[in-house]
């Protein structure tokens, strides 16, 4: 069947499609997470330098990747929404934001949990951690803007603009923080100098990252269905849906 964007762009059909996707992605996330954990705890060797503490890397790095990746996906949906004014794309970026903020916070939390045993301090002003902190602030800003604007059309477009400005700034922020970090501390203290990247560790992190992505899609689908119901309240298909269950 031809995949015409407009067929799936209508909220009603997307509601059904999202409903079918949720179980697949949830199970996919669970299985991959299980595999990832197995690799992290049972296959990856003990590190001669950091002992067992380095195993935090299996969720710290994927969380940092995910917080960045979700922000870029939100920027993509914002650009699509502003260009073609499709309501659904604005809903997608709204549905992804909380999960992105969650992963940004998690990368900070796990970074602190890893910094304490390694450098004796809960918070290390390391380049990547500091950038994640600023990215977390960007998430907080966008969610605050959405909650401050009642009219949803203005909220959608204003949010999309802020995300795009943020997206242009993220690489610059990462560069300036890395520049700031090397200026003040030299490159010695960097959390990301994980032990030599044994293939097993990279594989473990990739599996966990994909598991996190499946999880985010499943969560976003549930959230976007809620938003669709909220916004299409007046339509007939929602009214029938309400009668059914």
């Amino acid at each position, binding site marked *: 069947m031809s995949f015409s964007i407009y067929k799936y762009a209508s909220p009603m059909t997307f509601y059904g499609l999202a409903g079918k996707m949720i179980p697949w992605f949830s199970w996919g996330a669970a299985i991959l997470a299980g595999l990832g954990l197995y690799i992290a705890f049972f296959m990856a060797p003990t590190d001669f330098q950091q002992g067992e503490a380095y195993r935090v890397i299996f969720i710290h790095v994927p969380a940092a990747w995910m917080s960045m990746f979700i922000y870029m996906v939100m920027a993509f949906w914002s650009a699509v929404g502003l260009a073609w004014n499709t309501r659904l794309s604005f809903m997608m970026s709204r549905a992804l934001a909380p999960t992105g903020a969650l992963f940004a916070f998690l990368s900070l939390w796990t970074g602190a949990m890893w910094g304490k045993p390694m450098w004796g301090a809960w918070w290390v002003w390391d380049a990547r951690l500091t950038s994640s902190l*600023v990215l977390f*602030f*960007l998430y*907080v*800003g*966008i969610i*605050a*803007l959405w909650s*401050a*604007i009642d009219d949803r*059309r*203005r909220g959608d*477009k*204003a949010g999309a*603009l*802020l995300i*795009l*400005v*943020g997206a*242009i*700034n993220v690489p*610059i*922020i990462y*560069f*300036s*923080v890395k*520049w*700031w970090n090397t*200026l003040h501390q030299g490159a010695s203290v960097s959390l990301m100098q994980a032990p030599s990247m044994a293939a097993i560790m990279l594989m473990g992190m990739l599996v966990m990252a994909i598991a996190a992505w499946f999880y985010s899609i499943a969560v976003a689908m549930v959230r976007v269905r809620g938003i669709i119901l909220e916004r299409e309240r007046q339509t007939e298909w929602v009214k029938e849906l309400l009668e059914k269950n």
Partner: protein
Amino acid sequence: MLRFLITVIRRDLLLAARRKGDWLTSQFFFVMVVSMFPLGIGPEPEMLRRIAPGVVWVAALLASLLSLSRLFADDHRDGSLEQMLLSPEPPVLLALGKALAHWLIYGVPLLVIAPVLGLQFGLQADVIGVLMLSLLIGTPVLSLLGSVGAALTLGLRGGGVLLTLLILPLYVPALIFGAGAVDATLAGLGPEANLSLLAAFAMLTLMVAPWVTAAALRISIE
């Protein structure tokens, strides 16, 4: 085209002149915030000299955010913003004009006050020179990026705080390069690298911010 830009800037300068109170509060806010730090940290000159760039720059950030929340608010309330958006000239010029006017009214005075505060923190003459230069290049960025936030949060409750929440993360590169330039001079490394990066960031902001502000204004007044 240019005449419209100059008219917008002249208009804001005239309005600011008529209402000096707002302008003065913003300058005194800047001075008071900076003067609080020695009270909190202690008078040791060596310590003050080290923290001076960061303190002055963060205070400049906060002072500009304080004054930015009213950039479009008064015009929005009395309807003149709509009339300006209905002018034949493209709204990008309005956004650029308002940002430049804000820079002239609230940004440039920071350059005049900064040396006094630099002396208060025991900075030598050449370091103060770099501080003023970094502020000269940096303050337009504060006004341009801030005008995006002001347009997005137009007419919202809690606009001032929301504006700060939205725009402070975007100020990080300007803060790092700006304060970094002064820091580098203190450390004897020379400010050229930081200043050129700051100038590059300023150029990018000058290219992008007015377009985004114009789009945000069209959305906010709907």
